[in-house]
C-alpha cells in the first residue's frame, strides 16, 4: 500500500515528440492517496491505459518521474514495483488449475507453500470460485476466466496498488454489478490503493471515491461523483457524465447576466475576465424547468425512457435537452427557466468562477 505521485508525466509513443499532439499523455501531475479508490474515466484513446501502464511499469514515461511513497520507481520493472494489474481481456494460464493460477504470483515471489495455500483459499472464497478450484482454467467461460484474473490481482496482500484496466468489459451485465460491489467491499476491508480504468460512467461513479476524468491526454477534472455532476470544470466532463449530458449554449456575458440570442439569463454572480475567449453557459437537463413562464422554446421530440422523459427542445436555434418527470406533461406554449444552482459558465471550455 502506497501513496503514488505522478511528477509531470508525459508520454509519447513516437520517438521524437515535438508538438503537444505527438503526446498520448500530455502532462499528468497528480497524487493518488494511499488507500484511495480512483476511477480513471474517459473515452477510448484519451490516454487512460497509457497512464495505467506507466504506473504499473509496463511503459516508461518519456518525461517525468513516478514515486511510490516518495521513492522514485520510474526505472523499475513491473515485478520490482509490487503492483497488481487486471487487464481488459482475461489472462489465465490455461494449463494450470484455478487454484494454481491464483498461487502463481505468490510462488514466483518465493512465498512459503503453507502461506500460499492459505492465501489462495481466502481469495477463492472472496471471488466465489471455491467450487472449481481444482478445474483446469482452460475451457472455462470468459466470466470465470476474468474472475480468475481478478483473483490473481487480489491475491498478493502487500501490493502497492491494484490497477484495473476496464476489467468488466467481457462480463455479463448482472455479474458486472455483483463483481463491482465485491471490489468495493474488498477495497473497504483491505484498503489497497485501487485505480480503475473505465469508459463507463456508471462503473466509475459507483466504484470510486474520486473520479479522474481524462480527455485528449490530459486530466480535466478530479472530483467526487457529485462534484463532477454539479460543477464540471470542463465542458467535456459536463457532456461525458450524465445522461443526457450537459447542455452547452454559446452566450455573451454582461456582468451578472448572460445573453443567449435574444434572451437574457440572470447568473448567480458575475464572471471574472473572459476577454477574447469563447464563452458558454452549461446547464444540466435536470436543472431546467419546463413551464409556461420564462424563455420560449420549441419542442422537437419527447423520448419516454420509463422513469422520466427527455424533452428535445430548441432555444434560440440551439439544441436543449430537458429532463421531465414521468407524470408531468408538456405545456401547449412551452417556456423554460434555468435553476440558478445548475448554471456554470465556461470560457474556452474551462469553467470560470462566478463571484458573489
Amino acid at each position, binding site marked *: 500500500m502506497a501513496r503514488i505521485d505522478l511528477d509531470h508525466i508525459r508520454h509519447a509513443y513516437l520517438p521524437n515528440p515535438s508538438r503537444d499532439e505527438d503526446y498520448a499523455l500530455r502532462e499528468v501531475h497528480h497524487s493518488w492517496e494511499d488507500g484511495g479508490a480512483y476511477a480513471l474515466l474517459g473515452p477510448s484513446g484519451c490516454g487512460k491505459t497509457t497512464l495505467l*501502464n506507466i504506473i*504499473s511499469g*509496463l511503459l516508461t514515461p518519456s518525461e517525468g518521474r513516478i514515486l511510490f511513497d516518495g521513492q522514485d520507481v520510474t526505472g523499475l*520493472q*513491473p*515485478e520490482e514495483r509490487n*503492483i*497488481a*494489474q487486471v*487487464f*481488459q*481481456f482475461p*489472462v489465465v*494460464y*490455461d*494449463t*494450470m488449475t484455478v487454484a494454481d493460477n491464483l498461487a*502463481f*504470483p505468490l510462488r*514466483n*515471489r518465493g512465498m512459503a507453500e503453507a502461506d500460499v495455500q492459505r492465501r489462495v483459499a481466502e481469495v477463492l472464497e472472496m471471488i466465489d470460485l471455491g467450487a472449481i478450484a481444482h478445474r*483446469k482454467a482452460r475451457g472455462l467461460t470468459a466470466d470465470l476466466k476474468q474472475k480468475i*484474473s481478478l483473483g*490473481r490481482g487480489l491475491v498478493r496482500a502487500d501490493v502497492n496498488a491494484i490497477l484495473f484496466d476496464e476489467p468488466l468489459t467481457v462480463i455479463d451485465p448482472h455479474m458486472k454489478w455483483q463483481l463491482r460491489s465485491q471490489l468495493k467491499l474488498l477495497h473497504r476491508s483491505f484498503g489497497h490503493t485501487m485505480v480503475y480504468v473505465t469508459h463507463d460512467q456508471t462503473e466509475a461513479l459507483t466504484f470510486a471515491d474520486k473520479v479522474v476524468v481524462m480527455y485528449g491526454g490530459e486530466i480535466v477534472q478530479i472530483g467526487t461523483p457529485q462534484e463532477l455532476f454539479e460543477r464540471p470544470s470542463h465542458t467535456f466532463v459536463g457532456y461525458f457524465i450524465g445522461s443526457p449530458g450537459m447542455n452547452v449554449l454559446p452566450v455573451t456575458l454582461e456582468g451578472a447576466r448572460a445573453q443567449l440570442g435574444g434572451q437574457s439569463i440572470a447568473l448567480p454572480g458575475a464572471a471574472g475576465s473572459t476577454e477574447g475567449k469563447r464563452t458558454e453557459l452549461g446547464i444540466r437537463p435536470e436543472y431546467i424547468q419546463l413551464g409556461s413562464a420564462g424563455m420560449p422554446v420549441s419542442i422537437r421530440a419527447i423520448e419516454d425512457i420509463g422513469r422520466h422523459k427527455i424533452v428535445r427542445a430548441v432555444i434560440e436555434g440551439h439544441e436543449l435537452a430537458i429532463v421531465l418527470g414521468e407524470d408531468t406533461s408538456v405545456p401547449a406554449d412551452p417556456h423554460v427557466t434555468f435553476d440558478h444552482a445548475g448554471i456554470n459558465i465556461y470560457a474556452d471550455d474551462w469553467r470560470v468562477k462566478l463571484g458573489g
Partner: protein
Amino acid sequence: MEKSWNNKAWFLVLPVLLLVAFSAIIPLMTVVNYSVQDTFGNNQFFWAGTDWFSDVLSSSRFHDALLRNLAFSAIILLIEVPLGIFIALNMPRKGLGVPFCLVFMSLPLLIPWNVVGTIWQVFGRVDIGLLGYTLNAIGVDYNYVSDPFDAWVTVIVMDVWHWTSLVVLLCYAGLVSIPDAYYQAAKIDGASRFSVFRYIQLPKMNRVLLIAVLLRFMDSFMIYTEPFVVTGGGPGNATTFLSIDLVKTAIGQFDLGPAAAMSLIYFLIVLLLSWVFYTVMITNDAKG
C-alpha cells in the same frame, strides 16, 4: 411430415467418387492384387495367399530397414522440434526483421527434394565438396561414401537443414497469436523467462506443434528422395530406409509380390504410428 427421397442426388457425389476411385482406390487395389499373387511374367498370376506378407514380416532385411526408419524419425524429431521452437522464440515479433526472417526461413522449403539431395551430395564430397573437403582439410576424417556413421550424420543434417523451417514457421504462427496482455500479466505476476515459456508460450503452441510433429513424422518416415540422391542407401545398407528398400525390391529385383505386400505393411505402419501420435497428443491436450 413425409420425408421426400430423391435418388438423383447420388449423381452429385459421383464425380468425387470417380476421382477418388481413380486416384486412390484402384491403384491401391492393384497393390492389394499383387500382394496376394505370384507372377512369372506373361501376365500369368498364381494365388499366393498371405505368403508374401509372412515372408516380409519375418525377413531381417525388412526389420533392419524398419528400425533404421524409426531411429531416423526419432532423431530428426528430437532435433527439429526443440530447435524449431528455439528459433521461433528468438525471431523478431515486429519490425523490418520479420519479413526478412520469414523469407529466409521459407527458402529451404521451396527447394525441390532431389535438388536438396544433389546440393548435399556435392556439398559433402571429399574431393570437390565445400563441406567434405574442408572437414578433411582440418583433420576430421569424414567420408559419407564409405563410413556409415558419416552417411547418417549427412542425411540427418540435411533433413534438419531442409525441414526445421517448417517447425519454426508453425511455432512462430502460434507465438504471434498470443496477445500482449499475457506477457504483461506475466511480468506483473513476476514470472521467470522459463515460466513464460512453460505456461504461456508452450500451451499456445500446443496445437501447431501437434501438426508439426505429425507432418515431420510422416514425412521423415516416408523419406526417399534425399537419402537416395546422396547415399543411394549405402554404404552397404546403412541408409537403406523402408522406401528405398521397397523401390529396390520392386524395380531393382522386380519382386512385385513381396514389394506389394511390403508397401501395404509400410502404409499400415505409417497410419498406425500417426494415429498413435495424434491420439496421445490430443489426450494430453485435453488433460493438459
